[in-house]
């Protein structure tokens, strides 16, 4: 596997790990860098300084303890619900595609799409904030009307890799999907 460095749309380094379990099954894992200590420091310091400023005027110690509480709960919620550690995509020939994302706290959400529902995997363009980004998405079809696209499931939603990474994933996905 060549050592190519990938970045996400904001220019942060991410790593792509392709594992080929057999010729029928491939797994792609996009890992996002861990949350930086500087960010945590800035967050806690800002909350605590604000709390101290309020305490200075009100002289109520409940403000300080609630600030500690808010930081702890906020951090827990952040690592449990927001911060994604890695996202993976498993493509199994003639069975389906499995998307999973695991959060920094270890929580994992998984969903599996059966092959009969999948129309194709494509790279799409989207307007995101003030820029145009590329993203990989699975096109779903309804079994009753096989030609129409019923919905779109975007992949790697939280890591948002750039085009070069997406192209690599796309090519090897298509290799497996087209192997009928």
């Amino acid at each position, binding site marked *: 596997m060549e050592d190519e460095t990938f970045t996400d749309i904001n220019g942060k380094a991410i790593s792509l790990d392709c594992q080929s*379990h*057999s*010729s*029928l*099954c491939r*797994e792609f894992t996009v890992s996002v860098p861990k949350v930086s200590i500087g960010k945590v420091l800035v967050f806690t310091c800002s909350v605590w300084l604000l709390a101290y400023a309020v305490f200075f005027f009100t002289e109520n110690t409940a403000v300080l303890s609630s600030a500690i509480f808010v930081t702890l709960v906020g951090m827990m919620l952040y690592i449990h619900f927001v911060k994604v550690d890695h996202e993976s995509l*498993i493509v*199994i*020939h*003639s*069975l389906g595609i*499995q998307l*999973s994302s695991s959060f920094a706290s270890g929580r994992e959400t*998984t*969903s*599996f799409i*059966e*092959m*009969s*529902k999948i129309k194709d995997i494509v790279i799409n363009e989207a307007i995101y904030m003030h820029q145009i980004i590329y993203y990989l998405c699975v096109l779903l079809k309804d*079994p*009753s009307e096989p030609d129409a696209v019923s919905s779109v499931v975007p992949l790697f939603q939280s890591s948002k890799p750039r085009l070069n990474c997406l192209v690599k994933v796309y090519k090897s996905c298509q290799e497996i999907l087209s192997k009928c």
Partner: protein
Amino acid sequence: MVLKVFFPQCCNRADSGLLVGRWISGHDSAVVLAVVHYPFIPGQVKQYVQQMKAQSGGELSVLGSWSLPKDGQEGMESFLRDLSTIFPQERWLQINRQLGKTGFTCQVLQRDQNGKVIQRETKKKVEGGDEEEEEEEEKVIFVHYEQKKVMFSQLHPLENGVPDPKTDPPSELRQMFQSVAGSAPLFFLDRYDDGPLKSTHWQSDGREASILVELLKQASVPLCMLLGWLLSIWTWISNARVFSLFPLRFLSSKLSTCVQLSHRTEHMRTLSSAKPAAGHTHFIRKANMVVSFLVDVSLGMLLIWWLYRDDHISMLANTLVPAADHVAKELEELLQWLMGAPAGLKMNRALDQVLGRFFLYHIHLWISYIHLMSPFIEGILWYGGLSACFGLTFALSLLSDMVALLTFHIYCFYVYGARLYCLKIYGLSSLWRLFRGKKWNVLRQRVDSCSYDLDQLFIGTLLFTVLLFLLPTTALYYLVFTLLRLVVVLFQGVIHLSVDFINSFPLFAVGLRLTRSHRLAEGVKFRVLCEEPGTALHLLMEINPLKCSTVVQNYRTPTYSCYPKDSWAALIKKLFVGELIYPWRHKTTKTD
């Protein structure tokens, strides 16, 4: 082509034998359900499979052979291979496993159509001569599944009714789940049974518990009958003619205790019906009702225990009357304040005095009524508290009704204020039309232009001016009493919400999700198991449990509040125009 073999985990270490299962039509996949061990008599196996097929009602066949050679069992290979001639199949799987290796190897023997015909005719003479060894490119994916979990899980979204096979064939996974769940009779064969056949598959470890369940089921029959009998008596009483007279019927539809009673009766009627639950959703709904009823009653018992322990009842009664007095006194002071110059506003003095005196007289009436009632309040509370043994919801509904009765004066004030205000607003709007030379056409439901006489215009303008100048006084009274009314409505709304929550929260389904998360499946997830070069791909299929929010959404009991929910904008519009608002009109709950 890629062949998918769904293989149960419990058969991983089974002795060599035959694979029993079914092919999933339309997909290249096979579901292995059990392994029938060597030695066996082929005729008996065929008979057994036929018997099981008849019992389960699904397709069932011998898929192939399974070999896990142990010491001193060489030469099985060719024997198991020859078996394929005894059990004629389009495809014959030969799954091998070596001791000490984790991966399986699989060979597929396939016959073409002509070969099959020949095969049948010359079964004994030809030894695999017309079988074509398939080309080596045939790939196999092994998907290991846990038989117990797959058997008991319910794949969501649920299929309602019978799906049309032509338009929407069930997906592969759904078929696989159905075939495992449908072949329950196959799993009754015990490991220690002394029959002609031995097989490996999932088998229940909790036979004793299932006996208990069976006993409970037996016991529930007379219980349901008793319940049904009681219910029929209750229905007979409530259908008596006395109750269908006008004021009683109207009252009972407005009292939340009566509504809750009818709701519970409905629940009980569903529970006591002799018919077994049709389908999964209905079963879960029934179980939810039972659990929520039990929780409700136990909470009610807890409340009773608290109320009657240290004579809390009399304490409550002793605080209730002074509280009502206090509220009345506060209201009186409020009226006095309104009759002066409230917030520095200058009101129409005459109208202000009239309205104030009117309300004061009303409060006077109310206070005397309360004092008349005060000796009986303790008794009412004592007997009312007993209703909590029917459940906490009854106690809460009773509380709501009592609040409604005790704040009746506020309601009256509100109605008077609202009616006056409404009258003024309507008068003003129609006179404003007159002012502009228009009128409301009732027949066409629109505003038409109209030429009025001079007298009409004069009188109209005069009335308009009078109404306009009197509006602030009535508007002030209306505002104050509406605010009071809103406080009461809010309190009642909170009580109704909590009653509704207890009634409709799917406790059983949530408990099932928390303790046996495989029972309610959203889908599946796969994990790559082992990668030994030369063996097939092995995947582990696990059950992806349903999200808790989806569980609550799917299984909540439909509530009795069938009124359309007012939106906030509609509520504000009603308040502005002066229409009456009721707590049972804009209950903030959804109906199913």
